[in-house]
Protein backbone atom coordinates (compact mmCIF):
# COMPACT_ATOMS: atom_id res chain seq x y z
CA UNK A 1 0.00 0.00 0.00
CA UNK A 2 2.63 2.52 1.08
CA UNK A 3 4.53 3.07 -2.11
CA UNK A 4 7.45 5.47 -2.53
CA UNK A 5 5.60 7.78 -4.89
CA UNK A 6 1.84 7.76 -4.97
CA UNK A 7 -0.11 9.73 -7.55
CA UNK A 8 -3.44 9.47 -5.82
CA UNK A 9 -6.69 9.95 -7.75
CA UNK A 10 -5.46 13.09 -9.46
CA UNK A 11 -7.78 15.17 -11.62
CA UNK A 12 -7.15 18.61 -13.02
CA UNK A 13 -9.35 21.26 -14.60
CA UNK A 14 -7.85 24.07 -16.62
CA UNK A 15 -9.87 27.25 -16.70
CA UNK A 16 -10.85 28.20 -20.24
CA UNK A 17 -13.22 30.83 -21.65
CA UNK A 18 -15.80 28.05 -22.15
CA UNK A 19 -15.63 26.83 -18.60
CA UNK A 20 -13.23 24.40 -16.96
CA UNK A 21 -11.47 21.89 -19.19
CA UNK A 22 -10.85 18.56 -17.53
CA UNK A 23 -7.48 17.42 -18.83
CA UNK A 24 -6.88 14.54 -16.42
CA UNK A 25 -9.51 12.46 -14.71
CA UNK A 26 -8.70 10.22 -11.80
CA UNK A 27 -5.09 9.37 -12.56
CA UNK A 28 -3.84 6.77 -10.17
CA UNK A 29 -0.28 5.51 -10.17
CA UNK A 30 2.04 4.00 -7.61
CA UNK A 31 5.77 3.86 -8.13
CA UNK A 32 8.45 2.00 -6.19
CA UNK A 33 11.76 3.42 -5.16
CA UNK A 34 14.36 2.90 -7.87
CA UNK A 35 11.79 2.19 -10.53
CA UNK A 36 12.10 3.56 -14.05
CA UNK A 37 8.63 4.40 -15.32
CA UNK A 38 7.73 5.63 -18.80
CA UNK A 39 4.51 7.40 -19.60
CA UNK A 40 3.42 7.00 -23.19
CA UNK A 41 0.34 8.29 -24.98
CA UNK A 42 -0.82 10.32 -27.92
CA UNK A 43 0.09 13.97 -28.20
CA UNK A 44 -2.09 16.21 -26.08
CA UNK A 45 -3.44 13.45 -23.84
CA UNK A 46 -1.97 14.98 -20.71
CA UNK A 47 1.43 13.41 -20.14
CA UNK A 48 3.16 16.71 -19.45
CA UNK A 49 0.33 17.68 -17.19
CA UNK A 50 0.86 14.57 -15.05
CA UNK A 51 4.53 15.37 -14.82
CA UNK A 52 3.94 19.01 -14.00
CA UNK A 53 1.64 17.99 -11.18
CA UNK A 54 4.24 15.62 -9.75
CA UNK A 55 6.83 18.35 -10.22
CA UNK A 56 4.58 20.76 -8.33
CA UNK A 57 4.40 23.24 -11.19
CA UNK A 58 0.64 22.62 -11.54
CA UNK A 59 -1.86 22.05 -8.74
CA UNK A 60 -4.21 19.10 -8.99
CA UNK A 61 -7.87 20.04 -8.75
CA UNK A 62 -8.68 16.79 -6.99
CA UNK A 63 -6.43 14.21 -5.41
CA UNK A 64 -2.76 14.70 -4.73
CA UNK A 65 0.79 13.43 -4.96
CA UNK A 66 2.43 11.75 -2.01
CA UNK A 67 6.20 11.26 -1.95
CA UNK A 68 7.70 9.24 0.90
CA UNK A 69 4.54 9.66 2.94
CA UNK A 70 4.36 13.40 2.51
CA UNK A 71 2.10 15.37 0.19
CA UNK A 72 3.92 17.59 -2.29
CA UNK A 73 2.24 20.54 -3.93
CA UNK A 74 5.00 22.96 -4.76
CA UNK A 75 8.09 22.59 -6.93
CA UNK A 76 11.33 21.54 -5.31
CA UNK A 77 14.73 20.05 -6.02
CA UNK A 78 13.63 16.67 -4.64
CA UNK A 79 11.69 16.35 -7.90
CA UNK A 80 14.21 17.56 -10.46
CA UNK A 81 12.91 18.10 -13.98
CA UNK A 82 14.65 17.59 -17.30
CA UNK A 83 12.79 19.69 -19.83
CA UNK A 84 12.29 18.80 -23.46
CA UNK A 85 14.26 21.75 -24.79
CA UNK A 86 17.10 21.57 -22.25
CA UNK A 87 16.26 24.93 -20.58
CA UNK A 88 19.84 25.73 -19.73
CA UNK A 89 20.58 29.33 -18.84
CA UNK A 90 22.22 30.56 -22.03
CA UNK A 91 24.44 33.11 -20.27
CA UNK A 92 26.02 30.50 -18.00
CA UNK A 93 28.58 27.90 -19.01
CA UNK A 94 27.71 24.24 -18.62
CA UNK A 95 29.63 24.15 -15.35
CA UNK A 96 27.90 27.25 -14.06
CA UNK A 97 24.51 25.87 -14.99
CA UNK A 98 25.10 22.83 -12.82
CA UNK A 99 26.77 25.00 -10.20
CA UNK A 100 23.69 27.18 -9.86
CA UNK A 101 21.65 24.08 -9.06
CA UNK A 102 24.22 22.60 -6.67
CA UNK A 103 24.71 25.87 -4.83
CA UNK A 104 21.03 26.48 -4.32
CA UNK A 105 20.42 22.93 -3.12
CA UNK A 106 23.57 22.26 -1.10
CA UNK A 107 24.84 25.78 -0.39
CA UNK A 108 25.76 26.00 3.28
CA UNK A 109 25.54 22.23 3.73
CA UNK A 110 28.65 21.26 1.79
CA UNK A 111 32.03 22.87 1.51
CA UNK A 112 33.15 24.68 -1.61
CA UNK A 113 35.50 21.90 -2.57
CA UNK A 114 32.84 19.24 -2.03
CA UNK A 115 30.45 21.15 -4.25
CA UNK A 116 33.08 21.59 -6.93
CA UNK A 117 33.85 17.88 -6.92
CA UNK A 118 30.16 17.08 -7.00
CA UNK A 119 29.56 19.34 -10.03
CA UNK A 120 32.47 17.78 -11.86
CA UNK A 121 31.34 14.29 -10.92
CA UNK A 122 27.90 14.88 -12.40
CA UNK A 123 29.37 16.35 -15.55
CA UNK A 124 31.56 13.30 -15.98
CA UNK A 125 28.55 11.02 -15.44
CA UNK A 126 27.03 12.43 -18.61
CA UNK A 127 30.42 12.46 -20.39
CA UNK A 128 30.61 16.21 -20.63
CA UNK A 129 33.76 17.00 -18.67
CA UNK A 130 35.54 18.09 -21.83
CA UNK A 131 33.10 20.90 -22.59
CA UNK A 132 32.16 22.10 -19.16
CA UNK A 133 33.40 25.62 -19.67
CA UNK A 134 31.53 26.15 -22.90
CA UNK A 135 28.34 28.11 -23.26
CA UNK A 136 25.18 26.21 -24.22
CA UNK A 137 25.17 27.99 -27.59
CA UNK A 138 28.54 26.43 -28.33
CA UNK A 139 27.51 22.79 -27.93
CA UNK A 140 25.15 20.47 -29.82
CA UNK A 141 21.57 19.68 -28.91
CA UNK A 142 22.45 16.26 -27.52
CA UNK A 143 25.18 17.78 -25.37
CA UNK A 144 22.78 20.38 -24.03
CA UNK A 145 20.39 17.64 -23.04
CA UNK A 146 23.25 15.83 -21.28
CA UNK A 147 23.96 18.97 -19.27
CA UNK A 148 20.27 19.24 -18.46
CA UNK A 149 20.39 15.69 -17.12
CA UNK A 150 23.56 16.43 -15.16
CA UNK A 151 21.91 19.46 -13.63
CA UNK A 152 18.89 17.42 -12.59
CA UNK A 153 21.03 14.57 -11.19
CA UNK A 154 23.18 17.02 -9.27
CA UNK A 155 20.19 17.95 -7.12
CA UNK A 156 20.09 14.36 -5.81
CA UNK A 157 16.37 14.21 -6.47
CA UNK A 158 14.09 11.62 -4.91
CA UNK A 159 12.33 11.44 -8.24
CA UNK A 160 13.80 12.42 -11.57
CA UNK A 161 11.20 13.77 -13.97
CA UNK A 162 11.94 13.87 -17.68
CA UNK A 163 9.55 15.34 -20.23
CA UNK A 164 10.44 13.87 -23.62
CA UNK A 165 14.12 14.44 -22.86
CA UNK A 166 15.28 13.13 -26.21
CA UNK A 167 12.31 14.22 -28.29
CA UNK A 168 14.16 16.95 -30.10
CA UNK A 169 17.19 14.85 -31.00
CA UNK A 170 18.04 12.84 -34.09
CA UNK A 171 17.84 9.04 -33.88
CA UNK A 172 21.57 8.39 -33.47
CA UNK A 173 22.12 11.00 -30.78
CA UNK A 174 19.02 9.72 -29.05
CA UNK A 175 20.41 6.19 -28.99
CA UNK A 176 23.65 7.47 -27.46
CA UNK A 177 21.80 9.32 -24.77
CA UNK A 178 19.58 6.34 -24.01
CA UNK A 179 22.68 4.23 -23.50
CA UNK A 180 24.17 6.87 -21.24
CA UNK A 181 20.97 7.08 -19.29
CA UNK A 182 20.90 3.29 -18.77
CA UNK A 183 24.50 3.40 -17.61
CA UNK A 184 23.73 6.15 -15.11
CA UNK A 185 20.59 4.38 -13.96
CA UNK A 186 22.56 1.17 -13.34
CA UNK A 187 24.91 3.15 -11.13
CA UNK A 188 22.53 5.43 -9.25
CA UNK A 189 19.28 3.48 -9.34
CA UNK A 190 17.16 6.61 -9.31
CA UNK A 191 13.39 6.72 -9.31
CA UNK A 192 12.56 8.07 -12.74
CA UNK A 193 9.42 9.12 -14.55
CA UNK A 194 10.05 9.69 -18.23
CA UNK A 195 7.57 10.87 -20.80
CA UNK A 196 8.11 9.62 -24.31
CA UNK A 197 6.53 9.26 -27.71
CA UNK A 198 8.89 6.53 -28.71
CA UNK A 199 7.79 2.91 -28.17
CA UNK A 200 11.29 1.46 -28.51
CA UNK A 201 12.67 3.95 -26.04
CA UNK A 202 9.95 3.10 -23.54
CA UNK A 203 10.55 -0.66 -23.76
CA UNK A 204 14.32 -0.35 -23.74
CA UNK A 205 14.58 1.87 -20.69
CA UNK A 206 11.61 1.14 -18.46
CA UNK A 207 10.70 -1.21 -15.67
CA UNK A 208 7.11 -0.14 -16.13
CA UNK A 209 5.25 1.45 -19.02
CA UNK A 210 2.22 3.53 -18.25
CA UNK A 211 -0.11 3.94 -21.22
CA UNK A 212 -2.51 6.86 -21.11
CA UNK A 213 -5.91 7.06 -22.76
CA UNK A 214 -6.73 9.97 -25.02
CA UNK A 215 -7.91 13.27 -23.61
CA UNK A 216 -9.91 15.13 -22.65
CA UNK A 217 -10.34 13.66 -19.20
CA UNK A 218 -7.45 11.31 -19.87
CA UNK A 219 -6.52 8.69 -17.37
CA UNK A 220 -4.29 5.64 -17.21
CA UNK A 221 -5.30 2.92 -19.62
CA UNK A 222 -2.85 0.15 -18.89
CA UNK A 223 0.32 -0.41 -16.91
CA UNK A 224 2.76 -2.96 -18.24
CA UNK A 225 5.77 -4.33 -16.37
CA UNK A 226 8.80 -4.83 -18.56
CA UNK A 227 10.66 -7.80 -17.19
CA UNK A 228 13.67 -7.78 -19.47
CA UNK A 229 16.95 -8.52 -17.67
CA UNK A 230 19.46 -5.72 -17.25
CA UNK A 231 21.86 -4.61 -18.51
CA UNK A 232 19.94 -4.34 -21.74
CA UNK A 233 21.77 -4.18 -25.01
CA UNK A 234 20.07 -2.60 -27.96
CA UNK A 235 21.54 -5.07 -30.46
CA UNK A 236 20.71 -8.23 -28.54
CA UNK A 237 17.18 -7.06 -27.86
CA UNK A 238 16.41 -6.62 -31.53
CA UNK A 239 15.89 -10.37 -31.89
CA UNK A 240 14.57 -10.96 -28.39
CA UNK A 241 11.06 -12.43 -28.41
CA UNK A 242 10.01 -10.83 -25.11
CA UNK A 243 11.20 -7.46 -26.27
CA UNK A 244 9.14 -7.69 -29.43
CA UNK A 245 6.16 -8.87 -27.46
CA UNK A 246 6.33 -5.81 -25.18
CA UNK A 247 6.73 -3.55 -28.18
CA UNK A 248 3.69 -4.93 -29.95
CA UNK A 249 1.63 -4.64 -26.75
CA UNK A 250 2.33 -0.94 -26.56
CA UNK A 251 1.78 -0.44 -30.27
CA UNK A 252 -1.53 -2.24 -30.06
CA UNK A 253 -2.62 -0.10 -27.17
CA UNK A 254 -1.69 3.11 -28.96
CA UNK A 255 -2.84 2.32 -32.45
CA UNK A 256 -5.62 -0.21 -32.15
CA UNK A 257 -7.41 0.21 -28.86
CA UNK A 258 -6.77 3.91 -28.34
CA UNK A 259 -6.15 5.21 -31.80
CA UNK A 260 -6.56 8.93 -32.14
CA UNK A 261 -9.85 9.90 -33.68
CA UNK A 262 -8.42 13.01 -35.28
CA UNK A 263 -4.95 13.11 -36.72
Amino acid at each position, binding site marked *: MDKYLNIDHVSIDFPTPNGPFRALDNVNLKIDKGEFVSIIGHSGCGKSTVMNIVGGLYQATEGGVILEGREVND*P*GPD*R*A*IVFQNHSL*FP*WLTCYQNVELAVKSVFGGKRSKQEMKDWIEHNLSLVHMSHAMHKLPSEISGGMKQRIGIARALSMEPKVLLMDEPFGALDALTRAHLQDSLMEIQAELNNTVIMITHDVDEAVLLSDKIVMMTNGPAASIGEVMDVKLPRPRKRLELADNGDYNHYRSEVIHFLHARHARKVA
Partner: protein
Amino acid sequence: MKDKLIYFLELTGFNWFIPLVKLGTGDSPKAQLQDLAKMVGVPLFAIVVFLLLWHMGAAKIITSLGQVPGPTQVWEQTTVLVDEHYEEREREQAFIERQEKRNAIKLEKNPDADVTIRPYTGKETFFDQILTSLATVFVGFLLASVIAIPIGIVAGLSNTLYSAINPLIQIFKPVSPLAWLPIVTMVVSALYVSDNPLFAKSFVTSAITVMLCSLWPTLINTAVGVSSIDKDLINVARVLRLNYLTTIYKVVIPASIPMIFTGLRISLGIGWMVLIAAEMLAQNPGLGKFVWDEFQNGSSESLSRIMVAVLTIGIVGFILDRITLSFQKFFSYDKNATIR
Protein backbone atom coordinates in the same frame (compact mmCIF):
# COMPACT_ATOMS: atom_id res chain seq x y z
CA MET B 1 46.54 39.66 -29.16
CA LYS B 2 45.35 40.43 -32.67
CA ASP B 3 42.11 38.54 -32.17
CA LYS B 4 41.51 40.39 -28.94
CA LEU B 5 42.09 43.71 -30.67
CA ILE B 6 39.69 42.78 -33.43
CA TYR B 7 37.07 41.69 -30.91
CA PHE B 8 37.46 44.99 -29.10
CA LEU B 9 37.09 46.94 -32.33
CA GLU B 10 34.00 44.97 -33.22
CA LEU B 11 32.56 45.58 -29.80
CA THR B 12 33.15 49.30 -29.98
CA GLY B 13 31.87 49.67 -33.51
CA PHE B 14 35.16 50.53 -35.16
CA ASN B 15 34.66 47.82 -37.71
CA TRP B 16 36.32 49.83 -40.44
CA PHE B 17 39.53 49.70 -38.45
CA ILE B 18 39.73 45.93 -38.59
CA PRO B 19 41.15 45.68 -42.15
CA LEU B 20 43.90 48.09 -41.09
CA VAL B 21 44.81 45.82 -38.20
CA LYS B 22 44.79 42.79 -40.45
CA LEU B 23 46.80 44.72 -43.02
CA GLY B 24 49.31 45.63 -40.33
CA THR B 25 49.76 41.98 -39.49
CA GLY B 26 50.16 41.05 -43.15
CA ASP B 27 46.86 39.21 -43.52
CA SER B 28 46.09 38.80 -47.28
CA PRO B 29 46.65 42.46 -48.20
CA LYS B 30 44.47 42.44 -51.28
CA ALA B 31 41.34 41.31 -49.52
CA GLN B 32 41.94 43.79 -46.71
CA LEU B 33 42.33 46.69 -49.14
CA GLN B 34 39.06 45.72 -50.78
CA ASP B 35 37.39 45.59 -47.39
CA LEU B 36 38.82 48.95 -46.54
CA ALA B 37 37.61 50.50 -49.79
CA LYS B 38 34.12 49.18 -49.09
CA MET B 39 33.98 50.18 -45.44
CA VAL B 40 35.75 53.53 -45.64
CA GLY B 41 35.66 54.52 -49.30
CA VAL B 42 31.91 54.35 -49.82
CA PRO B 43 30.91 56.38 -46.77
CA LEU B 44 33.67 58.86 -47.50
CA PHE B 45 32.36 59.35 -51.00
CA ALA B 46 28.85 59.93 -49.66
CA ILE B 47 30.15 62.58 -47.27
CA VAL B 48 31.96 64.40 -50.04
CA VAL B 49 28.81 64.42 -52.17
CA PHE B 50 26.84 65.74 -49.23
CA LEU B 51 29.31 68.56 -48.63
CA LEU B 52 29.18 69.55 -52.29
CA LEU B 53 25.39 69.64 -52.35
CA TRP B 54 25.38 71.63 -49.13
CA HIS B 55 27.88 74.09 -50.50
CA MET B 56 25.89 74.69 -53.68
CA GLY B 57 22.50 74.78 -51.96
CA ALA B 58 23.54 77.12 -49.17
CA ALA B 59 24.80 79.80 -51.55
CA LYS B 60 21.32 80.17 -53.04
CA ILE B 61 19.44 81.04 -49.84
CA ILE B 62 19.73 84.49 -48.32
CA THR B 63 18.19 85.06 -44.88
CA SER B 64 17.90 88.25 -42.84
CA LEU B 65 21.11 87.11 -41.14
CA GLY B 66 22.86 86.81 -44.46
CA GLN B 67 23.59 83.82 -46.61
CA VAL B 68 22.97 80.33 -45.23
CA PRO B 69 26.41 79.09 -44.21
CA GLY B 70 28.16 76.52 -46.32
CA PRO B 71 30.75 74.03 -45.13
CA THR B 72 33.61 76.54 -45.28
CA GLN B 73 31.93 79.12 -43.06
CA VAL B 74 30.98 76.41 -40.61
CA TRP B 75 34.53 75.14 -40.45
CA GLU B 76 35.74 78.71 -39.88
CA GLN B 77 33.39 79.10 -36.94
CA THR B 78 34.51 75.77 -35.56
CA THR B 79 38.07 77.05 -35.35
CA VAL B 80 36.82 80.32 -33.86
CA LEU B 81 34.96 78.42 -31.16
CA VAL B 82 38.05 76.36 -30.39
CA ASP B 83 40.17 79.52 -30.20
CA GLU B 84 37.63 81.20 -27.96
CA HIS B 85 37.84 78.22 -25.65
CA TYR B 86 41.61 78.49 -25.29
CA GLU B 87 41.50 82.25 -24.87
CA GLU B 88 38.96 81.89 -22.13
CA ARG B 89 41.11 79.28 -20.40
CA GLU B 90 44.12 81.60 -20.57
CA ARG B 91 42.10 84.42 -19.10
CA GLU B 92 41.03 82.15 -16.30
CA GLN B 93 44.61 81.11 -15.63
CA ALA B 94 45.68 84.75 -15.57
CA PHE B 95 42.87 85.63 -13.17
CA ILE B 96 43.87 82.87 -10.78
CA GLU B 97 47.49 83.88 -10.86
CA ARG B 98 46.64 87.51 -10.18
CA GLN B 99 44.45 86.54 -7.31
CA GLU B 100 47.13 84.30 -5.81
CA LYS B 101 49.71 87.01 -6.11
CA ARG B 102 47.40 89.54 -4.48
CA ASN B 103 46.65 87.18 -1.63
CA ALA B 104 50.30 86.36 -1.13
CA ILE B 105 51.18 90.02 -0.78
CA LYS B 106 48.32 90.55 1.63
CA LEU B 107 49.45 87.63 3.77
CA GLU B 108 53.02 88.86 3.79
CA LYS B 109 51.95 92.18 5.24
CA ASN B 110 49.62 90.66 7.75
CA PRO B 111 49.53 86.89 8.30
CA ASP B 112 46.08 87.12 9.89
CA ALA B 113 44.46 88.94 7.00
CA ASP B 114 41.26 87.65 5.49
CA VAL B 115 42.04 86.44 2.01
CA THR B 116 39.13 85.92 -0.31
CA ILE B 117 39.38 83.35 -3.03
CA ARG B 118 36.83 84.09 -5.69
CA PRO B 119 36.04 81.60 -8.43
CA TYR B 120 36.49 82.78 -11.96
CA THR B 121 33.20 83.81 -13.51
CA GLY B 122 33.95 84.06 -17.18
CA LYS B 123 31.50 82.95 -19.80
CA GLU B 124 31.16 79.28 -20.68
CA THR B 125 32.95 78.22 -23.79
CA PHE B 126 31.44 75.91 -26.38
CA PHE B 127 33.24 72.97 -24.82
CA ASP B 128 31.99 73.81 -21.34
CA GLN B 129 28.53 73.80 -22.82
CA ILE B 130 29.01 70.38 -24.38
CA LEU B 131 30.11 69.05 -21.00
CA THR B 132 27.12 70.62 -19.26
CA SER B 133 24.81 69.04 -21.79
CA LEU B 134 26.45 65.65 -21.31
CA ALA B 135 26.21 65.90 -17.54
CA THR B 136 22.57 66.90 -17.75
CA VAL B 137 21.61 64.13 -20.11
CA PHE B 138 23.43 61.57 -17.98
CA VAL B 139 21.72 62.61 -14.79
CA GLY B 140 18.32 62.52 -16.50
CA PHE B 141 19.06 59.22 -18.18
CA LEU B 142 20.38 57.67 -14.99
CA LEU B 143 17.32 58.75 -13.03
CA ALA B 144 15.10 57.37 -15.77
CA SER B 145 16.94 54.02 -15.79
CA VAL B 146 16.88 53.69 -12.02
CA ILE B 147 13.12 54.15 -12.08
CA ALA B 148 12.26 52.35 -15.30
CA ILE B 149 14.25 49.12 -14.95
CA PRO B 150 12.86 47.97 -11.57
CA ILE B 151 9.31 48.93 -12.51
CA GLY B 152 9.72 47.22 -15.86
CA ILE B 153 10.97 44.03 -14.21
CA VAL B 154 8.15 43.87 -11.69
CA ALA B 155 5.57 44.73 -14.36
CA GLY B 156 6.97 42.08 -16.68
CA LEU B 157 6.61 39.47 -13.96
CA SER B 158 3.06 40.36 -13.00
CA ASN B 159 0.31 40.57 -15.58
CA THR B 160 -1.89 42.44 -13.15
CA LEU B 161 0.65 45.15 -12.54
CA TYR B 162 1.39 45.39 -16.24
CA SER B 163 -2.23 45.97 -17.14
CA ALA B 164 -2.40 48.51 -14.33
CA ILE B 165 0.45 50.68 -15.56
CA ASN B 166 0.06 50.08 -19.27
CA PRO B 167 -2.55 52.84 -19.82
CA LEU B 168 -0.37 55.29 -17.92
CA ILE B 169 2.62 54.41 -20.09
CA GLN B 170 0.60 54.80 -23.26
CA ILE B 171 -0.73 58.20 -22.18
CA PHE B 172 2.52 59.74 -20.98
CA LYS B 173 4.83 58.26 -23.60
CA PRO B 174 3.89 60.61 -26.47
CA VAL B 175 4.04 63.80 -24.37
CA SER B 176 6.54 66.30 -25.72
CA PRO B 177 9.26 67.67 -23.45
CA LEU B 178 8.01 71.18 -24.20
CA ALA B 179 4.75 70.28 -22.51
CA TRP B 180 6.45 68.86 -19.42
CA LEU B 181 8.87 71.71 -18.98
CA PRO B 182 6.58 74.40 -17.51
CA ILE B 183 5.20 71.94 -14.98
CA VAL B 184 8.63 70.65 -14.08
CA THR B 185 9.92 74.21 -13.74
CA MET B 186 7.14 75.13 -11.34
CA VAL B 187 7.49 71.96 -9.29
CA VAL B 188 11.25 72.32 -9.06
CA SER B 189 10.92 75.96 -8.01
CA ALA B 190 8.46 74.96 -5.33
CA LEU B 191 10.32 71.94 -3.96
CA TYR B 192 13.99 72.55 -4.66
CA VAL B 193 14.66 75.44 -2.30
CA SER B 194 18.01 75.72 -0.62
CA ASP B 195 20.26 78.68 0.14
CA ASN B 196 23.27 77.02 -1.29
CA PRO B 197 22.03 74.71 -4.03
CA LEU B 198 24.39 72.04 -5.23
CA PHE B 199 22.88 72.13 -8.71
CA ALA B 200 21.42 75.06 -10.58
CA LYS B 201 17.65 75.01 -10.94
CA SER B 202 17.92 75.09 -14.71
CA PHE B 203 20.06 71.96 -14.52
CA VAL B 204 17.59 70.09 -12.33
CA THR B 205 14.68 71.15 -14.50
CA SER B 206 16.38 70.02 -17.69
CA ALA B 207 17.51 66.73 -16.19
CA ILE B 208 14.04 65.90 -14.89
CA THR B 209 12.50 66.75 -18.24
CA VAL B 210 14.96 64.42 -19.91
CA MET B 211 14.04 61.77 -17.38
CA LEU B 212 10.32 62.12 -18.00
CA CYS B 213 10.77 61.63 -21.71
CA SER B 214 13.36 58.86 -21.63
CA LEU B 215 11.64 56.68 -19.04
CA TRP B 216 9.27 54.99 -21.42
CA PRO B 217 11.39 53.03 -23.90
CA THR B 218 13.38 51.41 -21.09
CA LEU B 219 10.24 50.69 -19.12
CA ILE B 220 8.41 49.12 -22.04
CA ASN B 221 11.36 47.14 -23.35
CA THR B 222 12.23 45.82 -19.90
CA ALA B 223 8.66 44.74 -19.25
CA VAL B 224 8.36 43.05 -22.64
CA GLY B 225 11.76 41.41 -22.24
CA VAL B 226 10.92 40.07 -18.82
CA SER B 227 7.48 38.82 -19.78
CA SER B 228 8.85 36.96 -22.77
CA ILE B 229 11.47 34.97 -20.86
CA ASP B 230 11.21 31.27 -21.65
CA LYS B 231 8.74 29.85 -19.15
CA ASP B 232 10.92 26.81 -18.57
CA LEU B 233 13.75 28.99 -17.29
CA ILE B 234 11.40 30.40 -14.67
CA ASN B 235 10.31 26.84 -13.90
CA VAL B 236 13.93 25.84 -13.33
CA ALA B 237 14.17 28.66 -10.81
CA ARG B 238 11.00 27.39 -9.14
CA VAL B 239 12.35 23.84 -8.95
CA LEU B 240 15.51 25.20 -7.36
CA ARG B 241 13.32 27.15 -4.94
CA LEU B 242 15.16 30.38 -5.62
CA ASN B 243 13.44 33.19 -3.76
CA TYR B 244 11.93 36.21 -5.52
CA LEU B 245 15.01 38.41 -5.37
CA THR B 246 17.44 35.64 -6.31
CA THR B 247 15.22 34.68 -9.22
CA ILE B 248 15.26 38.27 -10.44
CA TYR B 249 18.97 38.63 -9.96
CA LYS B 250 20.07 35.24 -11.30
CA VAL B 251 17.46 34.51 -13.94
CA VAL B 252 15.21 37.41 -14.88
CA ILE B 253 17.81 40.14 -15.31
CA PRO B 254 20.40 38.11 -17.25
CA ALA B 255 17.66 36.73 -19.48
CA SER B 256 16.28 40.14 -20.32
CA ILE B 257 19.54 42.09 -20.52
CA PRO B 258 19.43 42.34 -24.32
CA MET B 259 15.96 43.86 -24.25
CA ILE B 260 16.82 46.15 -21.36
CA PHE B 261 19.78 47.50 -23.28
CA THR B 262 17.71 47.98 -26.40
CA GLY B 263 15.42 50.12 -24.26
CA LEU B 264 18.31 52.00 -22.71
CA ARG B 265 19.72 52.82 -26.11
CA ILE B 266 16.45 54.24 -27.35
CA SER B 267 16.04 56.12 -24.08
CA LEU B 268 19.44 57.73 -24.29
CA GLY B 269 18.80 58.77 -27.88
CA ILE B 270 15.48 60.34 -26.94
CA GLY B 271 17.02 61.92 -23.87
CA TRP B 272 19.70 63.61 -25.93
CA MET B 273 17.14 64.90 -28.41
CA VAL B 274 14.86 66.17 -25.67
CA LEU B 275 17.72 67.78 -23.80
CA ILE B 276 18.41 70.39 -26.46
CA ALA B 277 14.81 71.61 -26.36
CA ALA B 278 14.75 71.53 -22.57
CA GLU B 279 17.95 73.54 -22.31
CA MET B 280 16.64 76.17 -24.68
CA LEU B 281 13.61 76.83 -22.53
CA ALA B 282 15.14 76.21 -19.11
CA GLN B 283 18.25 78.23 -19.95
CA ASN B 284 20.53 75.43 -18.76
CA PRO B 285 24.00 76.47 -19.95
CA GLY B 286 24.44 73.64 -22.45
CA LEU B 287 24.23 73.23 -26.20
CA GLY B 288 20.54 74.09 -26.25
CA LYS B 289 21.21 77.45 -24.63
CA PHE B 290 24.09 78.00 -27.02
CA VAL B 291 21.77 77.60 -30.00
CA TRP B 292 19.15 79.83 -28.43
CA ASP B 293 21.65 82.55 -27.50
CA GLU B 294 23.18 82.57 -30.95
CA PHE B 295 19.72 82.81 -32.47
CA GLN B 296 18.89 85.82 -30.24
CA ASN B 297 22.30 87.30 -30.94
CA GLY B 298 21.62 87.43 -34.64
CA SER B 299 25.06 88.39 -35.89
CA SER B 300 26.30 87.36 -39.28
CA GLU B 301 28.19 84.42 -37.82
CA SER B 302 25.25 83.14 -35.80
CA LEU B 303 23.94 80.75 -38.39
CA SER B 304 27.35 79.20 -38.88
CA ARG B 305 27.80 78.83 -35.16
CA ILE B 306 24.38 77.22 -34.83
CA MET B 307 25.34 74.88 -37.62
CA VAL B 308 28.46 73.89 -35.66
CA ALA B 309 26.20 73.13 -32.72
CA VAL B 310 23.87 71.09 -34.92
CA LEU B 311 26.75 68.97 -36.15
CA THR B 312 28.14 68.64 -32.64
CA ILE B 313 24.76 67.49 -31.34
CA GLY B 314 24.62 64.92 -34.10
CA ILE B 315 28.11 63.63 -33.55
CA VAL B 316 27.79 63.45 -29.77
CA GLY B 317 24.46 61.66 -30.17
CA PHE B 318 26.11 59.20 -32.50
CA ILE B 319 28.97 58.57 -30.09
CA LEU B 320 26.55 58.04 -27.20
CA ASP B 321 24.66 55.50 -29.27
CA ARG B 322 27.89 53.69 -30.14
CA ILE B 323 28.90 53.53 -26.50
CA THR B 324 25.58 52.03 -25.41
CA LEU B 325 25.74 49.65 -28.34
CA SER B 326 29.14 48.45 -27.12
CA PHE B 327 27.71 47.93 -23.65
CA GLN B 328 24.78 46.08 -25.14
CA LYS B 329 27.07 43.77 -27.08
CA PHE B 330 29.31 43.26 -24.10
CA PHE B 331 26.53 42.33 -21.70
CA SER B 332 24.49 40.27 -24.11
CA TYR B 333 25.05 36.54 -23.68
CA ASP B 334 24.23 35.82 -27.29
CA LYS B 335 27.40 37.21 -28.84
CA ASN B 336 26.38 36.09 -32.28
CA ALA B 337 23.18 38.08 -32.40
CA THR B 338 23.47 40.97 -34.82
CA ILE B 339 22.72 44.14 -32.98
CA ARG B 340 22.69 47.38 -34.95
